[in-house]
């Protein structure tokens, strides 16, 4: 695909002007070209905004507004800057000084989620911290991988992120490129990742210890899915339930699936797949990356990190 063709297809992507075939070609090219993949991820947020009828209508109205009107608006703004703004500033200053000694109102923390095991529940945690870091405090897996209001996850720095920070597009949006990558499936014999970027703990619960969930911490913002692998090597996705993958913030420990599940007798292992988000815009929306610049641990971020979790008898 030539540079011109790529530009053409990218140009039509955000405004939904591509045919199904053109989209297919673009996605295929993106899977083979990291730069194009990143560009496509960046375009995705804009595409989603423009796909929203309300946004589209507002954009149309803004574009229909003549530039001349904007200029007269600027003259008005100059008047505002010269006269009204200083006056308003003075009023605010007086108000602030007046309230300097007033008691401060602090919003109560918002509870993101909680989980309580029954009194008879037997819980055995098989912690496997791939990087030997202490496990981070988990939150139950929300559709929106939102951090608790306070403490950052251990080992990965701040988790201030996700929900309120997912600004450019919708919070739970999965880019089409990522969707397609997960939908295409991952090779059963794919090389397994054993580095420090993905940590997990297998959590057993229930009276017989046969209910299972997994606490996962990804050092990178990205997308994850959890599969069950049976003796025949068949993969069945167990998280998320509906989407092919779920967004995950960097350094945030999530517990998936939402409720512990009972594993089939034929299940041999679980497979965790994390696809790091690579474009700066997407990483920002997902709460930034905990991978610091001094240690570029991961060189090809669109490559999925595949981690197998053996299901030893409880």
């Amino acid at each position, binding site marked *: 695909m030539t540079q*011109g063709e790529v*530009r*053409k297809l*990218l*140009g*039509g992507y*955000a*405004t939904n*002007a591509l045919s199904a075939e053109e989209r297919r070609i673009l996605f295929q090219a993106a899977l083979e070209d990291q730069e194009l993949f990143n560009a496509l991820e*960046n*375009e995705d*947020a*804009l595409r989603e*905004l*423009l796909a*929203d009828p*309300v*946004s*589209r209508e*507002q*954009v*149309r109205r*803004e*574009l*229909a*507004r003549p*530039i001349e009107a*904007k200029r007269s608006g600027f003259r008005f703004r100059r008047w505002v800057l010269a006269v009204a703004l200083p006056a308003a500033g003075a009023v605010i200053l007086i108000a602030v000084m007046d309230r300097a000694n007033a008691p401060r109102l602090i919003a109560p923390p918002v509870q*993101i*989620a909680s989980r309580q095991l029954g009194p008879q529940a037997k819980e055995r945690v098989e912690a496997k911290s791939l990087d030997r870091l202490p496990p981070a405090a988990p939150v139950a897996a*929300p*559709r*929106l991988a*939102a951090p608790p209001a306070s403490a950052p996850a251990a080992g990965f720095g701040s988790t201030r992120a996700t*929900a*309120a*920070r*997912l*600004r*450019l*597009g*919708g*919070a*739970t949006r999965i880019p089409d490129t990522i969707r397609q990558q997960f939908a295409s499936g991952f090779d059963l014999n794919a090389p397994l990742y054993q580095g420090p970027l993905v940590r997990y703990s297998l959590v057993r619960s229930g009276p017989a210890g046969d209910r299972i969930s997994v606490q996962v911490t990804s050092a990178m913002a990205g997308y994850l899915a959890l599969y069950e692998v049976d003796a025949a090597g068949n993969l069945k996705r167990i998280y998320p339930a509906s989407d092919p993958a779920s967004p995950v913030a960097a350094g945030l420990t999530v517990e998936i699936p939402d409720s512990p599940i009972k594993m089939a007798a034929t299940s041999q292992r679980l497979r965790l797949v994390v696809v790091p988000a690579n474009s*700066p*815009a997407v990483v*920002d929306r997902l709460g930034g990356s905990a991978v610091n610049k001094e240690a570029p641990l991961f060189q090809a971020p669109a490559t999925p990190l595949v981690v197998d979790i053996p299901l030893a008898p409880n």
Partner: protein
Amino acid sequence: MPDGRIDALTALEQTEARERLIAAISEMGERCRKLLALKLEGKSFAEMQAIVGASSINTIYTWDFRCRQELMDRLRNRERSARETDR
């Protein structure tokens, strides 16, 4: 988190994103605004070339590419400013 809260949060984010988009577009030049308007009307690049009178289709591709870059940069800057304001 209850679903209602997620919905409210998502709606707030969408509103903010929309406001940033409109503000970013309002700062763009006439040519970029024209191209975006034509794209939203569903015009092809060839049709855009004819309407704006560009000498070649590659000129349109280039303009479109630069305009999208400009728009994305403006959006990113606004997002960054909003985040710094939140801190």
